[in-house]
């Protein structure tokens, strides 16, 4: 009796997590009249973090702070501001945290460089292992045949 209940609970939790992970669609019914501006609007709102809702962009969030921020982006675009002006406007108020893609600076350098460095380290390690193995093969071919067979 205990186990099925637990299973049901797990199932329910899995379903809930699926629902929670689904991005909210079409938060903005009205598009900007100018298609070029609308494209920039969409790009920008996907770059800005909805500060109250953590992982979401302001484009995906239904929170009213996100809708206020979208309104601001729209108005600044219509007023002829550049994308950088708008990013700067947001950062001046909310800090770099509002940018989902953090800018490259001394403080964030490790963040940007770490994947590359790790990849190089991994490649070097792999190369060393391959070299060692082939050296072993060159020394003696007998064990290789055994290895292949087993």
């Amino acid at each position, binding site marked *: 009796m205990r186990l099925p209940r637990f299973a049901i609970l797990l199932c329910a939790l899995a379903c809930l997590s699926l629902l929670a992970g689904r991005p909210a669609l079409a938060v903005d019914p009205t598009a900007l009249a100018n298609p070029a501006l609308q494209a920039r609007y969409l790009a920008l709102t996907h770059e800005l973090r909805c*500060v109250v809702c*953590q992982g979401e962009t302001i484009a995906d969030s239904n929170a009213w*702070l996100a809708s*206020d921020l979208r309104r*601001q982006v729209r108005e600044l675009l219509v007023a002829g501001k550049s994308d950088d002006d708008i990013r700067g406007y947001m*950062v001046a*108020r909310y800090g770099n945290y509002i940018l989902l893609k953090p800018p490259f600076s001394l403080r964030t350098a490790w963040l940007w460089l770490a994947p590359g460095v790790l990849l190089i380290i991994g490649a070097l390690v792999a190369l060393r292992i391959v070299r060692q193995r082939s050296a072993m093969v060159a020394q003696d071919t007998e064990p290789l045949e055994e290895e292949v067979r087993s």
Partner: protein
Amino acid sequence: MARFLIPLGVFVALAIVLGVAIKHSPDKENIASPLIGKPTPQFALPDLSEPSKTITTNDLKGHWYVLNVWGTWCVTCRAEHPMLLEAARQGIVPIIGLNWRDDDDEARAWLNKLGNPYALVIVDREGRTAIDLGIYKAPESFLVNPQGVIVYKQVGEITPEVWQKEFVARIKGTTAGKS
């Protein structure tokens, strides 16, 4: 032995890096405000008690004040309210309320019912000034010095400890120490 030491070393290094990163990651409760040390953003907002009257940033300049962002929809604001009443009773610094995205009648009813700690309440119904202030959740409170510069920002409830340490100490520290 060395075969195991290398992965172990990598694991320990990774654990340290991630541990430090988690410790220093921006706390969702308190994103450092870029406005600290900067002049209070310009605004011109109606007075809650007299909506035909407009209050601007310059009207508030010349003395210390606390700008407290609140709304009747905000649960933590209700929890904070008794502390604000106590702070107002102490009379050290006036508290200016910024009523954020709220209904004027409900805001007035709230103050009538729970008591009014504010020297003045300004109304930001569209949330524009809130964006200029980098507000993302209520309550948030700014401490502004007589030059109109933001000295401190509290995100979330002002507890008695925060009130003493971050607000009162800062006001008393500068007024007693330097001038």
